[in-house]
């Protein structure tokens, strides 16, 4: 950069210069520093600027740690921070809110997976990516705009056609027990990294609070159809035909599910 004092530097030139020094991962052109920033009696120009640079990385790392507590536990803090620093360089925040900071992290991990050029993919990488996705979903659902004005069903004798699921009820099918791992990690139970195993879960929000249900495969498929059709009857009959189930047995199973789910405040009145 050509900087000749005392000609005043355009504002956006200074900003562009400073921004690149604050957010870039690599050392800068130190020559021009003192032409832009005044040294003080205690600190050089570079030391003054470094305060911003250190704060930038510390602040956004902390933020990512808050948004991905289970993933950072799974990867280990140091590795997580290494990934975070590269992520911030590739996807610097473009949002006015820090709530969006981790929004591309899953995609970034997918793009930069360490087994990218290997024929045989490593399953632990898939675990981390699915965990990243789930964890960010949790962040989104917590603060998403959704109807919270509903009547929770408390009476187990309610007719099936009056039942509906909560407005926020997200269903997940994972190749690992992601939600169990997540719950244990955030509750400081130090879970071990799990082996591949299909798992199904529901993330719900009730009265502004989040909850996670572990589901059986059939329950997952039932709820999926129920969300789509808003009809218990339709969902049961589709389940029956798709999984070739005995109708009487399914009805008996449904009455157990229904009672348990109503007890847990899973349904709202239509």
């Amino acid at each position, binding site marked *: 950069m050509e900087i000749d004092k005392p000609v005043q530097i355009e*504002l956006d030139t200074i900003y562009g210069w400073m921004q690149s020094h604050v957010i870039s991962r690599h050392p800068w052109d130190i020559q021009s520093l003192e032409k832009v*920033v005044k040294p003080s009696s205690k600190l050089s120009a570079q030391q003054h600027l470094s305060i911003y640079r250190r704060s*930038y990385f510390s602040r*956004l790392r902390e933020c990512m740690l808050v948004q991905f507590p289970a993933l950072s536990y799974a990867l280990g803090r140091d590795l997580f921070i290494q990934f975070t620093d590269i992520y911030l360089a590739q996807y*610097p925040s*473009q949002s006015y*809110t820090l709530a969006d900071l981790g929004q591309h992290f899953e995609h970034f991990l997918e793009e930069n997976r360490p087994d990218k050029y290997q024929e045989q993919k490593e399953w632990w990488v898939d675990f981390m990516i699915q965990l990243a996705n789930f964890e960010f979903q949790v962040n989104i659902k*917590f603060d998403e705009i959704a109807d919270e004005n509903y009547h929770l069903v408390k009476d187990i004798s309610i007719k099936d056609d009056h039942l509906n699921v909560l407005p926020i009820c997200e269903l997940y099918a994972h190749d690992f027990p992601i939600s169990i791992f997540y*719950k244990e990690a955030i509750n400081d139970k130090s879970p071990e990294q799990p082996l591949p195993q299909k798992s199904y879960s529901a993330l719900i929000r009730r009265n502004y609070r989040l909850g996670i249900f572990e589901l059986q495969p059939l329950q997952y498929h039932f709820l999926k159809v129920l969300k789509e059709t808003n009809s218990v009857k339709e969902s049961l009959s589709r389940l029956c035909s798709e999984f070739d189930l005995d109708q009487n047995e399914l009805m008996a199973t449904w009455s157990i599910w229904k009672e348990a789910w109503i007890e847990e405040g899973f349904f709202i009145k239509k």
Partner: protein
Amino acid sequence: MKNNKEHIQNLPNLGLGVGLRGEHFNHILEHRPKVDWFEIISENFMDSGGRPRYVLDQIAEQYPVVMHGVSMSIGSTDPLNFDYLKKLKQLAIDTKAKWISDHLCWTGINHINSHDLLPVPLNEESLAHISKRINTVQDFLEQPLVIENPSTYLTFQDSTIAEWDFLTYLTEETGCGLLLDVNNVYVSAFNNEFDPVEYIENIPHDRVVQMHLAGHQNQGDYIIDTHDGPVIDEVWKLFHLAWKRTGGTSALLEWDGNIPEFEVCHEEILKAKQFMDTLVFEEVKNDRKQENSRLVSNPIDFMVNPVSKEFEITYGDR
């Protein structure tokens, strides 16, 4: 502009307030503490459809609320974000906010947000640029903006105007109000080697709407504005001076790192009462120094929801 000036000068002194933080939601809802007012971080609530907004709506019904933002980026050369401003305006209507503040800073250019309050070169060019933008924002929001002095860590070679004069000119050009962060004056004065008393003596006292107080960390050669502890005596002295010069304004404690129980935060700001008219120190509280290279200015605790702490209902297998 004349209207803005009058508007600013007629804003009420709300008393001693506390910054609303997620950590205190339950305490506030349960105990309804006797707090004069709350300051909210605008960005934490403008998109919220979850519990933060639900809690805020209840608080706004019972307490006066003031909005404090960190992402307007009034000093930037990027275009103003009118999508953001629209949400800001709506939140102010919804919460009946007494005023809206943000910082004399830029947060990024080329659409990048550093999420930091970066310093502005203080000269004729930036003064004209920022005055114009404040006027645009004020026209859009249909109310004057309140501008806070950020804590700064460097001085530009191109700065030709003292910050107190710069703020004075801004108020003259736009009719905006000032949020005087007394701790930031102390921090910036230390880091950039100017006299904090001269600063406070020279700002336009009739435009100060609100004051901020906070704790910081002294690293020896520089100070980081960490908002993570009690206010030190030197800052209380500056507060006392600012109180005398302004005749008293709304005052608020910012506590964002190592956030203690609500009552501890509240008591810290109530100490301001003993420094309004006289300077009485019960115990000497000087600069705190912490050996920690991870110190963050403008810490993020108040800008991200620690969602993992918000699970009330988690279930086992079924």
